[in-house]
């Protein structure tokens, strides 16, 4: 969030017009660098993939349900807000990974929609932090995995671990990793529809 605010201040008052033309080349290099890094991180999670083999294919029904539910909810919200299908679905496909979804949409589609994706997914993560303990107690442990989306493999994992049990924590890790793998694939595809 600090980086975006810093950029806004820079762009509003200090960005020289001569530099604006070079910005695209720099951001393309940065995007390539970041995506290779993201790929290495996801590809090297062998232990998660081996857990997935042990738990069986049924565990993938959790990220499938979270993903479809998230997309359906975002498209429903898009209808209420008069947003085009491609924009609302791509924003929903961020699954809480605000940095990646925001910059991908800003880079390949429109910076304003990218900012909306960023903000939406920041709010989703905040909502997840508040809802996970409540859902684990009031509803069921598995339902506590739902609000976090892709963040259940990192930032919200400790909250899930505290609020639920070891089995649900493993499911949350698989859920977060699977959804994280889908974000860089689904967001560009959906925004290009």
């Amino acid at each position: 969030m600090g980086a975006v605010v810093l950029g806004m201040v820079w762009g509003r008052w200090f960005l020289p017009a001569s530099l604006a033309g070079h910005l695209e080349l720099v951001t393309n290099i940065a995007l390539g660098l970041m995506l290779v890094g993201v790929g290495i991180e996801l590809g090297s999670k062998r232990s998660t993939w081996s857990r997935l083999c042990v738990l069986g294919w049924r565990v993938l029904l959790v990220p499938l349900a979270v993903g479809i539910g998230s997309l359906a909810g975002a498209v429903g919200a898009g209808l209420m807000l008069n947003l085009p299908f491609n924009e609302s679905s791509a924003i929903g496909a961020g699954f809480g990974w605000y940095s990646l979804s925001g910059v991908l949409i800003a880079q390949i589609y429109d910076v304003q929609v990218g900012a909306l994706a960023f903000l939406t997914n920041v709010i989703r993560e905040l909502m997840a932090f508040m809802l996970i303990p409540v859902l684990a107690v009031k509803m069921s442990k598995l339902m506590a995995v739902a609000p976090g989306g892709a963040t259940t493999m990192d930032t919200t994992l400790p909250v899930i671990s505290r609020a639920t049990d070891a089995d649900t924590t493993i499911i949350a890790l698989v859920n977060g990793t699977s959804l994280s793998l889908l974000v860089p694939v689904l967001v560009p595809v959906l925004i290009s529809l």
Partner: protein
Amino acid sequence: MSFIFICLATGGLIGFFRPPSKALAKYVNLATMAGLFILLVSMGAQLGSNKKVAADLGQMGIQAFVLAGMSVLGSICLVRLLAASLEKRLSLSAAKDISKAGERR
């Protein structure tokens, strides 16, 4: 768009077949964070230089709240529909996994 998939697949293949050592993983993480920082600052700069976007930030906040709320609600509702059968099946699988891990130790 192909640029995105090529970069991602390249990284994925490197990570899967040649996972970086702990020391190298630090540098990979640093490079990823540097790339992300540049992109976020650039996104902010483009937003800041556009006066109309800056004026619409309040409206954007409301839209973001509705989109996030509905996404979370959609996920919760769908997991709720599947919860009963999933919990039964997954807890059995997980229990088997844990007992197997115990036997190995």
